[in-house]
């Protein structure tokens, strides 16, 4: 269970880490988008696809 404030903190920290310079207004918009994304992502994370699903896209040398 992730609270909205820790999602917002994550966005602020990660955006900086990734080299984005965001003013307060831009940051707030991105945080709003990310909170929505997190709801959708949680829907993916709470599902157990079992062992048959390949763990990562296959690399062919």
């Amino acid at each position, binding site marked *: 269970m992730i609270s909205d404030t820790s999602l917002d903190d994550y966005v602020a920290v990660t955006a900086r880490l990734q080299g984005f310079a965001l003013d307060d207004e831009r940051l707030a918009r991105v945080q709003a988008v990310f909170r929505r994304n997190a709801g959708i992502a949680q829907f993916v994370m709470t599902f157990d696809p079992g062992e048959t*699903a390949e763990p990562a896209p296959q690399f062919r040398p």
Partner: protein
Amino acid sequence: MSAPHRTALTIAAAVARGETTASAEVEAALARIAASDGVINAFTAVTADRARHEAALVDQRRVRGDRLPPLAGVPFAVKNLFDVAGLSTLAGSRLHERRLPAERDAVLVARMQAAGAVLVGALNMDAYAYGFTTENTGYGPARNPHDTARSAGGSSGGSAAAVAAGLVPITLGSDTNGSIRVPSSLCGIFGLKPTYGRLSRTGSFPFVASLDHLGPFATDVADLAACYDAMQGPDPADPACAQRPVESARSALRRDAGHPLRVARLGGYFDHWASPEARAVSMRAAEALGAHRTIELPEVERARAAAFVISAAEGGALHRETLQRDYDGFEPHNRDRFLAGALTPANWYLQAQKVRAWFAEQVRAVFADVDVLVAPATPVAATLLGEEWIELGGERLPLRPSLGLFTQPISCIGLPVTAVPIASPGLPLGVQLIAAPWREDLCLRAALQLERAGVARCVIAGG
């Protein structure tokens, strides 16, 4: 504009018989574009010089008595994420105007040219393909020819509008989560999203490498099959291309059916989020194809969510540097979505790929005793430009992402789909005819069956 609409194959046949010339066809297309595109805004570039030059070459070949290729003299246009020699590949972004022009055509554009088709221009799209309405701040919206206050759909809105307005009979677009099927439905035309990896992506600007498909739009099934065949074939330069030999769709359509198609309608999720009109066209198509049962796929919402996470992560990563350097110049409609996507935790992305693999396996089992699945292509018909919200399934949802509700779970697992316009009063509305991987022949055969029954019909606006 006063002449009745002719299909690509009709034009090609007339050119081959000497009843018309490629040059005359190109001039007519250029005139139609000049007359109508000011309102529709499908085109971002008109390649008149190139088109006239190529048309003249076709005419010379004809005069020489050469055997002409199948689409000789047919004007066509391509979404502006395809490389066109001499043009900067815009991918819907004003920022790309400063990029060096492409040195050569995209592979699919070159193959269409090799088939004799004549390129007349590049077409409008949602910036960087992240959108379902072609509301492009930099280039203006692509308007629906059936009602210019409404969206042509996206992200290949220009491609669909150009065909629906009768400007050219065939165009090319791309589809990652629905960008061929959504505009086909809203504009009332045919579209084909082949199997993931079927057609080469070399020389096209990407969006989501794991999900991008390229494909044609047309006004009938025969044209769709002809374009698809012209573009098929391996391409060692594209690592995502499956390198399969050409499997002629036109031959498959001409062959005797053998057994009748086993068809089922998709219910559950595909009914819950559909408007009554969308549910009705799905039922009409299913009934006309002799479908007796309704199937509910498991965890469709989960597959859609997985495609969403994959798109956000890969799209965000692709544009990370541009967003760092030039946030202000980036399309306002999607820059925050791309930026948020670039922050996606790795576990979300990896889990989404696993869910995708799981869902693909579930659906593969369904195709053991079904040839074609029927579902609506969009939950509703074309909406007004600028619309933000929609009522679906008893809930208020954000409109733009919701247009892809029915397309996104299907392209998530790369199944071939023919988008087919179903004859109905009022605004156009289409269905998806979905087949197992590599069975484009089956979904095209189903489309042809609907066309012959008069259930599928493309109406050219103003024609």
